């Protein structure tokens, strides 16, 4: 197909040319979708090409979206990919009545997405003081930025041990489970780097599972510490650093527990002992 013809190609209801001019006018990138994977009826992941000039810190989020009439419809999404990866991967829920996700779930390879030019976020190791153990506590699609931070070699220079917890309702919603249990250990770089230093701790709130229940409850009841072989069921403000990414209510519960344990929330301008992703939606 000649370049001239591909310009006329329609993407949804808009032509590529229309999308390009909207992206330019709104100072957005327009990026091609290269991969889509559906985990369940309610969860999927997708990748877009990464613009050469697009720089971000592992754990950050960015705005992505589609054309909606005369304007772009954008939402904040955490980047699943670490900052060295050539593509940008995202992990999303499918909400039938969600203005963006109801359309995003039909994405196909070759479609185009808007991408904002300013990634940002607090779920970055820069916002944490040095420590020994990094606990990354995620629920649902809140796992996304944790996967980014996990695969940044800088994280492993800063911490001796890394723990990722992922809590979902049903076992089948444990997206990236195979990656965290098998694939990453077979990876040339990370297999070695993570050996004996990484724990993946999935929990499921509905149905049978070896580690059942909310992570907040498992921490409070001491099950979490016992399963991991930790001493005491409190986070040590001197050595523990925590990243939290989940629903609004979950973030609030975790924050009050961590504060009660003596940890302080950090930010880019003033690093602390835990950080919370506030921009997470869904």
């Amino acid at each position, binding site marked *: 197909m000649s370049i001239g013809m591909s310009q006329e190609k329609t993407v949804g209801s808009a032509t590529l040319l229309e999308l390009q001019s909207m992206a330019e006018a709104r100072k957005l990138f327009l990026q091609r979708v290269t991969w889509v994977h559906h985990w369940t009826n309610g969860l999927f992941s997708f990748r877009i090409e990464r613009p050469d000039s697009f720089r971000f810190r592992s754990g950050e989020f960015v705005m992505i979206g589609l054309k909606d009439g005369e304007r772009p419809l954008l939402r*904040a999404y955490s980047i699943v990919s670490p900052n060295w990866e050539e593509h940008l991967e995202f992990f999303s829920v499918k909400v039938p009545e969600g203005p963006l996700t109801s359309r995003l779930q039909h994405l196909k390879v070759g479609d185009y997405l808007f991408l904002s030019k*300013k990634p*940002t*976020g*607090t779920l970055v190791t820069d916002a944490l003081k040095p420590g020994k153990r990094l606990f990354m506590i995620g629920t649902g699609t809140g796992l996304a930025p944790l996967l980014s931070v996990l695969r940044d070699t800088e994280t492993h220079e800063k911490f001796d041990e890394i723990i990722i917890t992922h809590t979902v309702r049903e076992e089948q919603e444990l997206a990236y489970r195979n990656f965290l249990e098998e694939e990453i250990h077979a990876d040339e770089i990370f297999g070695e780097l993570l050996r004996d230093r990484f724990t993946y701790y999935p929990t499921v709130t509905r149905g049978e599972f070896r580690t059942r229940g909310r992570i907040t409850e498992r921490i409070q009841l001491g099950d979490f510490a016992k399963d991991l072989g930790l001493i005491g069921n409190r986070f040590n403000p001197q050595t523990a650093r925590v990243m939290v990414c989940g629903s609004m209510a979950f973030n609030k519960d975790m924050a009050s527990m961590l504060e009660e344990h003596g940890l302080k929330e950090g*930010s880019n*301008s003033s690093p602390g002992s835990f950080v919370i992703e*506030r*921009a997470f939606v869904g």
Partner: protein
Amino acid sequence: MTFIVTDACVKCKLMDCVEVCPVDCFYEGENCLVIHPEECIDCGICEPECPIEAIKPDDEDTPEQFWLGVNTKYSEIWPNITRKGISPADADEYRDEKDKFERYFSEKPGNTD
């Protein structure tokens, strides 16, 4: 819902918030900033970045929504600010002072961008 800039920003204008805003929804006056309520996506990232806790969710506004009014009005008038500029040299002196808006608020636009 949106986030709003409140009294503490007046005369301090530290601008750490501007660096982290994903949608560049801050607008600059001579001695403080405001958020454009319709552009703010409610991500909340700016709130903990402010060293003087000037940014709050709008459900913590006064019952009359005074600060929402200030943010709405001046974000329409002042220029957009997308990078951290130079804070007033005497910002520290006004850090802990209360009710600064009445005493010092300037309607003049800022000029960082």
